[in-house]
C-alpha cells in the first residue's frame, strides 16, 4: 500500500499491504492486511488473499469448499469509519453511529472544525471525526490504550489527528513539549495552539474537565461541547458545571437508533383455512356416520359394547395450503407473501445521555 494514502480514503483496487475489511456477515466483519502469502479462514472455507489482489474493492470472493462442493463467499470492503465501528468487537465500549453522527451534526463538524475528543477509547469515533474535521485533538488517559491508538492512527493514515496521553480531568487539555503526544511542535513553541471549536467529552466525570476547557477552545467563536454520560445523575452534575462555567443553550437529548430487517410473512387467507377445515370435516363425517350407526346399534343391541371400535381416529388431513408440518422457506414461490419489517430482537435502548452546550468566550467586535 502506498503509505502516504490513508486506507480510509477512497481507493478502488485491492492491493498488497492494504488494510481491508472482510465482510462475512453483518455481525462478523474482520480487518486484514492484504498479504499474498496469507489465507483468510472462516468456518465456511479458506479464502486466499491472492484471489483478492487486483480486484476492485467490494468484490465478492467465492470458492467451492472442497468437502461438500458448496458455494461460499465473502466480500472485501474498503474501510470506512462506520464499517470500522461495525468490525469492532461488541464488548468494547464504543460510540455507535446514530450517536456519533448526531453529535457531529449538532456540533456542525466540517473541514473548518477543530475538535477535542476525550477520551479516545476504542478510537471508533476518532475515525469518524478524522474523516470530516480539520483537526482532531484526542486525549486518552490510559497508557495501554494510548499506545494502541497511537499505532492504529498511524497505520490508518490519519494525519489530522493529534493523540495525547493525559488525564484531562486533573491535568487539562494544554499540550506542552515533552508531554506524551503525537503533536508536532513548530520551532520553539512551548505549547500547542489548539483553538478547538467543538468538544466531545466521553468521560465518567466530565464536570471535572469542563472548567479546564477555556484554555484550549477558540476565544472569538461560538464553541460547542457534548458530554456523553450513561447515568442521569451525571447529567445533573454536568449541567451544574456547564452553567457555572458560562456555557449556554444547555440541552440534553437521547438518541434512539433502531435497525429493521425486511422479512416476509405468509399470506394465509380465510378461504384456505376453511378449505382445510372442510377437508378435516369430510374425513370426520365418515367417522360420525360410522359412530351414528354404532350408536344406533348400541341402543338396539345390548351385546355390542363398542368401547374399542366405536371411536376410530379419522385419518390426518392431507390438504394443507400453508405447508404446515414441512418447513416452508420464507419467500417460497409456491406461497403468497406479505412484506413486513422486523426490528432487531435486542435493541440498544440506551447508549448515553448527550448534553450539549455552547459558549463564546470573547464577544468583542472585530471590524
Amino acid at each position: 500500500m502506498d503509505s502516504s494514502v490513508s486506507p480510509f480514503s477512497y481507493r478502488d483496487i485491492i492491493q498488497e499491504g492494504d488494510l481491508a475489511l472482510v465482510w462475512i456477515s453483518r455481525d462478523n466483519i474482520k480487518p486484514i492486511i492484504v498479504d499474498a502469502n496469507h489465507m483468510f479462514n472462516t468456518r465456511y472455507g479458506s479464502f486466499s488473499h491472492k484471489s483478492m489482489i487486483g480486484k476492485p474493492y467490494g468484490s465478492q470472493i467465492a470458492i467451492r469448499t472442497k468437502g461438500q462442493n458448496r458455494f461460499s463467499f465473502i466480500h472485501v470492503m474498503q474501510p470506512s469509519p462506520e464499517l470500522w465501528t461495525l468490525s469492532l468487537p461488541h464488548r468494547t465500549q464504543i460510540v455507535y453511529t446514530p450517536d456519533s453522527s448526531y453529535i457531529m451534526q449538532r456540533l456542525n463538524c466540517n473541514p473548518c472544525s477543530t475538535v477535542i475528543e476525550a477520551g479516545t477509547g476504542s478510537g471508533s469515533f476518532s475515525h469518524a471525526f478524522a474523516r470530516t474535521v480539520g483537526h482532531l485533538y484526542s486525549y486518552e488517559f490510559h497508557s495501554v490504550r494510548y499506545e494502541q491508538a497511537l499505532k492504529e492512527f498511524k497505520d490508518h493514515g490519519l494525519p489530522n489527528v493529534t493523540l495525547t496521553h493525559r488525564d484531562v480531568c486533573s491535568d487539562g487539555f494544554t499540550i506542552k513539549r515533552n508531554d506524551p503526544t503525537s503533536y508536532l511542535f513548530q520551532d520553539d513553541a512551548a505549547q500547542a495552539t489548539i483553538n478547538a471549536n467543538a468538544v466531545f467529552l466521553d468521560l465518567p466525570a466530565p464536570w471535572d474537565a469542563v472548567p479546564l476547557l477555556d484554555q484550549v477552545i477558540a476565544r472569538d467563536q461560538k464553541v460547542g461541547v457534548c458530554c456523553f454520560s450513561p447515568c442521569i445523575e451525571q447529567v445533573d452534575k454536568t449541567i451544574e458545571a456547564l452553567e457555572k462555567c458560562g456555557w449556554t443553550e444547555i440541552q440534553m437529548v437521547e438518541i434512539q437508533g433502531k435497525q429493521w430487517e425486511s422479512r416476509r410473512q405468509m399470506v394465509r387467507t380465510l378461504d384456505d383455512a376453511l378449505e382445510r377445515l372442510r377437508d378435516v370435516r369430510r374425513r370426520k363425517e365418515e367417522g360420525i356416520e360410522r359412530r351414528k350407526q354404532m350408536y344406533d346399534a348400541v341402543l338396539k343391541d345390548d351385546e355390542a359394547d363398542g368401547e374399542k371400535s366405536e371411536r376410530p381416529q379419522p385419518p390426518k388431513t392431507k390438504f394443507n395450503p400453508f405447508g404446515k408440518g414441512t418447513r416452508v422457506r420464507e419467500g417460497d414461490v409456491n406461497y403468497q407473501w406479505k412484506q413486513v419489517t422486523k426490528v432487531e430482537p435486542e435493541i440498544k435502548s440506551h447508549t448515553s445521555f448527550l448534553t450539549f452546550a455552547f459558549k463564546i468566550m470573547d464577544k468583542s467586535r472585530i471590524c
Partner: protein
Amino acid sequence: MDYLHHITADQHVILKLPSGNWKIVELKPHTSVSLGKFGAFQVDDIIGYPLGTQFEIYYENQSQPNDDDPKNKNRTPVGKVRIMDEDVGGSTEGSELSNVNSSANNMNLINIGNEIQAMTSEQIEELKRQSISGEEIVAKMIESHSAFHKKTLQSQEKYLNRKKRKFAKYFTVEYLSASFLLQWLLEKGDTQKVLDMSEETVAMLLNVANIRSEGQYLCMDETGGLLVYFMLERMFGGDNNSSHTGKIVVLHENEHANLDLLKYSNYSEKFINDHVKTVSLLDFFEPPNESEIDSYFKPIPKEEARQLKAGKKNAYQRRLKWYYNQHEIVQLSTKSQYDALIIASTLQLSTLVPLLAEKVHGSRPVVCYSQFKEILLELTHTLYTDLRFLAPSISETRVRPYQSVRGKLHPLMTMRGGGGYLMWAHRVIPAPEPPAHETEDEGNGPEEKKQKTQ
C-alpha cells in the same frame, strides 16, 4: 474566513427570536431588520460580532421615532442593540423557581390565571415605553404577582416563559447551518417540503454515506436543496475558498433541478457551479451523443470568437456554454463512477436504485431516505435479490430532547412525530459462479444473500 465565525455584511444569517421562532435575513449594510413585536435593529450595529452572539434591543426614552407620522404607525421603531451577558433563549433558569419538595402547595394548584396578575396592562405598557428590558418587566410583574409563589413549579415555569416571550426584545444571530435551515423550515410548517426529514436522520445519512470533502456523489434531492446543503456543509464547511475537490451530481426529474434553498447559503455562485452539477434523469440515462453535439456546434478558435461583434458574441457564448454542458453530461452520465449514491426522492425507489447504483464504485455506500418505512421495505426486498447490494437494512434514528433544567429534568412532553427512515447498503461486485459440476447447487455463503427463513 471571518464570515464563518463573525457576522459579516451581505451574509445570510438566521435569527433566533424570544418566541423560539427563527428568521432568516440577509444582512444588507445600512438597512434595518424588523422583528415585529420584538423590535427592530440596524444591520450595521451587529456586524463584526461573533456569530452566535445574543443581542438585546433597547430604546432610549426619546427614541420612539416617527410617532406622529401616520405612515409609520405600524412600523417597528428601530432600537439600539447591546450584547446580552446571559443566555435567556434556552430553558427557563431554575434560580427563580422554588423547588417542588413537599405537597404543601398542592391546594393552590388550580385557578392560577390572568386574574391574579396585579399589574394593569397600562402599567405594563408604561414600563415598555421606558428603557426597560423584557427581563426587568417580567421581574416587576412577578413582584406584583401575589399568587406566584403559590403556583406549582410547572405553572410558574409556563408563566415565566409566556411573559418573557411576550415582552422580551432580544435575538441571537446564528450561522445559517444546514441544521438551522432545516429547523426553520420545520417551524414554518414545511415538513412535507423536506419529506419530513429530521436532523438526526440526515446526520445519520451523512455518516453512513461516508461523505468526504474529496468525494464524487450521485444524488437525488427532493427537499428543495436542503440535502445538498447538508452535504456541502459537511464537505466544505461553508468555505468558499475550500481547496477540496468534492462534487455532487444532482439528478432531477423535472426540467430543472430544484435547489432553491441554496439561495440562503453563503456559497458563491462560482463555488456552487464548481461543486454542484445538475443532470436530468433523461440526460443521465439517455445522454446526448457526442458526435451529435459536435454536429450542432463546434467552438471556433478563441481569436476568432474574440473578434465577434457584441450581439453575436453573446449568442456564441451561450452556445459554447450549452456545448460544454452537453459534454459534461456525457462525462457525468457515462464516464464517471461515484463514491456514494444518495437519494431522497418520492420516485419509486425499487425501480430507480438498481439502475443508478450501476454508477457507484464497489464497496461504496448506497443510502436512500424515505419518509415512509414501507417504501424502503419494498426497496430492500428488491435489493435482496440483486447480488450487487450487500446487506441492505433499514434504520430509524430519533432524538429525544429533555427539559434540561436541574431539578426538573424530564423528556419533553411532546415532540414532532416523524423524521423518516434510511436504507443503507453497500455496492458490491458479484463474483462469477466458481466452477463446479453441480451448477444448480444452491448458494450457501456465510452471508446469505437470499431471504433467510424464519
